[in-house]
């Protein structure tokens, strides 16, 4: 079955604002998300999860659950047919817990039943004998405590060896002389809480056995092929017998890089020979995916009187939670961007991620750069104040430019228009303060009607953020695309494009179609379903890479097909076809030196994108309530493939950074999540979001097809520090922790 029917599209070419391919089906309700799927004879799966953050498992008694009405299967770790563990970077995560559980909500057993409520009730009859252990919960103490994993996965992995317990990765970037002094120095300590992706579509999917020992899994994911490569070994069957198909994805933001129901659904489906559907509840979704790493950051910036940075020292500590997920890459990314988009010749950056029994953390939009940008930009404001310099001017004096080097020694060879982006953002006119006598909905506290303007102070802030585009440190990152050009009975040509790039809401399907139309100069472009069954890997819809990589792959496949068509005389006979697949790779990267963190070849990152933002806030300093009034931003986007979608990414990415600044935090007590609901974990609503004035800075990236760059992450990276900068301006407080709490801004 196909969840995304093949359809003909009438769209523009690269550079035009065009309606999304899926906009109408999504607006009518006919678009099939992963939670909407049904199949004949379908059962419902349910996951029993650990009520402890850390405990030994002595026994699991399934006998009573098996006799419950409607139940077809109960499975535990004993029923995992192949490898017992999986993982994105290291196979450290059990398919189902055995011996011990390491986080609150860890999957322990599975039930399949006729009705979801029957499955829930049967799961409640499972008897698990736990022996609670003292959880490791403080990231600063984790490296001195008992290891929560017997193996030390990262040792001998090409990373700097750190034999301390619970260290996932410890790295150091050493540039120049980190002991050099400046005429002025500022120090700071910063903290970030755990942010959740909070995509609206819960983890869900349908696993359908093919009757021959294989499985089709329809699921919302970010990388179909890496799901397959993790699922197959745990099922103990060849990769070819696992087919992952993209079902409609209700948002992702990094939270769907790791497996959720894929393996569990497949196990139950193969065991029962029935299709099995999983739909997590919202509460379960908070346990069903990794989160943004909480962090503690110590920073010291030294500069000369003229404002030029002479040395930056930063220590970053990240809590990876119970399993590694993509923590090693987050650790490195956080280090890479610790100095911000500024030139500095001397730096010492240490970045460490530890295992704890807190919720597992991994990819979320901004991926390490969010954490370090929050600290780096606060430091730049502090430095500007110490130097009595305008904060924008200070940033301009230090702005990285092509030819400069990053702290890793990598020379900026492509596009990175830091100064232009800063100038463009700073030039957007800031609205005049509105008089206080106004509809309360436009005051801090909103319809709560808590002030008529008394105690309200206005603040204006500025920040700059940058991040890499694409996978780094030598990862062999590629995207495949396949184009089948065929002639109908009248010899009219249609191109059917296959690419497994995950459409997660960001609009990559339009990128694919617009690229094909541009290259083939035809409107007859049809998009095939995204699946592992018909095309090689597209890589992940992550790291702001998919637009670049998908357009590169589709361009290459289209050009190959065009060449072949030319060779055949420019036409195909009715029924004839050309079917070619091509692989696209971005410029090669290389690992960093494990001891110095310096590049070992030309680059460790592929390319960069930068954004600058001004934020205006109003704070009721008597009650600690905040309203973000206005945001103006300029972003380096390379070339906007679909400008309307690019503005949408900027506005939406800004909202997620605003959420981290003001309200979003997963709260834990002794490792247990205490706010796993949208009642208690708040995300921005219409009442929280200000108007966003965005300007696109289009300087083509020389190494990318059409000069494109990724656009999804920079707005999330920059908006948190921009809003914090404005809050500091309004309150005079240091505000070194996000999300900011009312107590922090009550004067």
């Amino acid at each position, binding site marked *: 079955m196909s969840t995304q029917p093949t359809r003909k599209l009438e769209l523009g070419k690269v550079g035009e604002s065009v309606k999304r391919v899926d906009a109408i089906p999504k607006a*009518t309700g006919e678009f099939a998300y992963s939670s909407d799927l049904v199949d004949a004879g379908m059962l419902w799966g349910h996951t029993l999860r650990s009520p402890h953050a850390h405990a030994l498992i002595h026994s699991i008694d399934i006998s009573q659950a098996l006799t419950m009405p409607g139940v077809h299967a109960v499975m535990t770790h004993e029923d995992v047919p192949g490898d017992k563990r999986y993982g994105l970077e290291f196979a450290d995560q059990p398919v189902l817990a055995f011996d011990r559980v390491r986080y609150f909500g860890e999957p322990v057993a599975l039930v399949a039943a006729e009705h979801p409520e029957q499955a829930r009730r049967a799961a409640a009859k499972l008897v698990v004998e736990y022996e609670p252990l003292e959880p490791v919960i403080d990231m600063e103490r984790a490296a001195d405590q008992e290891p929560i994993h017997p193996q030390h996965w990262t040792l001998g992995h090409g990373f700097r060896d750190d034999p301390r317990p619970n260290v996932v990765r410890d790295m150091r970037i050493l540039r120049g002389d980190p002991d050099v002094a400046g005429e002025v120095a500022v120090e700071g300590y910063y903290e970030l809480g755990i942010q959740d992706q909070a995509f609206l579509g819960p983890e869900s999917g349908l696993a359908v056995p093919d009757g021959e020992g294989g499985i089709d899994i329809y699921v919302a994911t970010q990388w179909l092929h890496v799901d397959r490569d993790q699922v197959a070994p745990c099922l103990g069957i060849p990769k070819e017998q696992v087919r992952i198909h993209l079902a409609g994805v209700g948002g992702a933001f990094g939270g769907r890089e790791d497996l959720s129901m894929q393996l569990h659904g497949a196990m139950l489906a193969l065991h029962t020979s029935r299709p099995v559907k999983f739909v997590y509840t919202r509460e379960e979704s908070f346990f069903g995916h990794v989160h943004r790493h909480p962090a503690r950051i110590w920073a010291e910036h030294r500069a000369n009187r003229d404002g030029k940075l002479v040395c930056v020292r930063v220590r970053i500590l990240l809590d990876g939670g119970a399993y590694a997920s993509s923590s090693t890459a987050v650790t490195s990314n956080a280090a890479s961007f610790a100095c911000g988009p500024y030139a500095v010749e001397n730096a010492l950056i240490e970045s460490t991620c530890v295992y704890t029994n807190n919720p597992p953390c991994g990819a979320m939009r901004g991926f390490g750069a969010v954490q370090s940008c929050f600290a780096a930009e606060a430091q730049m404001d502090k430095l500007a104040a110490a130097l009595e310099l305008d904060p924008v001017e200070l940033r301009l004096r230090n702005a990285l430019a092509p030819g400069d080097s990053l702290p890793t020694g990598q020379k900026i060879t492509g596009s990175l228009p830091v100064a232009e982006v800063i100038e463009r953002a700073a030039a957007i006119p800031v609205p005049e303060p509105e008089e206080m006598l106004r509809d309360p909905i436009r005051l801090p506290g909103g319809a709560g009607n808590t002030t008529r303007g008394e105690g309200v102070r206005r603040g204006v802030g500025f920040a700059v953020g940058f991040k890499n585009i694409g996978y780094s440190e030598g990862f062999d990152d590629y995207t495949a695309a396949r184009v089948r050009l065929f002639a109908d009975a009248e010899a009219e040509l249609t191109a059917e494009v296959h690419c497994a790039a995950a459409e997660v809401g960001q609009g990559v399907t339009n990128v694919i179609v617009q690229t094909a139309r541009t290259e083939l100069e035809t409107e007859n472009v049809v998009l095939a379903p995204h699946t592992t069954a018909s095309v090689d890997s597209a890589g992940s819809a992550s790291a702001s890479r998919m637009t670049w990589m998908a357009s590169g792959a589709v361009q290459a496949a289209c050009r190959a097909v065009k060449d072949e068509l030319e060779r055949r005389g420019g036409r195909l006979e009715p029924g004839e076809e050309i079917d070619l697949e091509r692989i696209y790779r971005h410029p090669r990267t290389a690992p960093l030196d494990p001891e110095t963190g310096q590049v070992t070849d030309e680059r460790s990152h592929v390319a960069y994108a930068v954004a600058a933002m001004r934020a205006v806030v109003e704070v009721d300093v008597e009650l600690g309530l905040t309203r973000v009034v206005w945001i103006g931003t300029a972003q380096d986007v390379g070339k906007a493939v679909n400008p309307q979608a690019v503005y949408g990414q900027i506005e939406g990415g800004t909202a997620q950074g605003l959420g981290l600044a003001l309200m979003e935090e997963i709260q834990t007590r002794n490792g247990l999540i205490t706010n796993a609901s949208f009642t208690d974990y708040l995300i921005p609503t219409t009442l929280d979001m200000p108007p966003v004035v965005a300007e696109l800075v289009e300087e083509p990236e020389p190494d990318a097809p059409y000069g494109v760059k990724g656009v999804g992450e920079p707005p999330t990276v920059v908006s948190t520090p921009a809003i914090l900068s404005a809050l500091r301006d309004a309150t005079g407080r240091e505000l070194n922790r996000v999300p900011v709490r009312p107590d922090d801004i009550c004067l």
Partner: protein
Amino acid sequence: MKIVLRVNGERREAEIWPGESLLYALRERMGLPGSKNACEQGECGSCSVLMDGTLVCACLVLAAQADGHELVTVEGVSEEGRLHGVQEAFAETGAVQCGFCTPGLIVATIDLLARKSDPSDDEIREALSGNLCRCTGYAKIFDAVRLAAART
């Protein structure tokens, strides 16, 4: 138990378990998955439907309570096979990204414009504050509501 109700102008019967929400009955019993299941606790508005003309979260109504009532879901808002103007406006303005919030927002916007044909930005803000969107930052949703209002 059996319930009988009108959904999108059609008489429908469904065999339900009494503990099921209206949202579950629509999605799993009646083949109408357009109303979405983002939180199932009345916080996100993704399952917004009209029940006897009143905007409700289908996740907070028991299926059994809907017996004998009249419902309109996102699948039923198009007019004579043509898209509703609000649907057109959402698609045109880029208000749809992942789209999971879209059905609920479309029903909520139709409800708003039925009450107030030319809402101010503050009125839009308040009326749609019960509908969470994680992708767009709401800017293009405001554009969509303004465009739909201007066309009617």
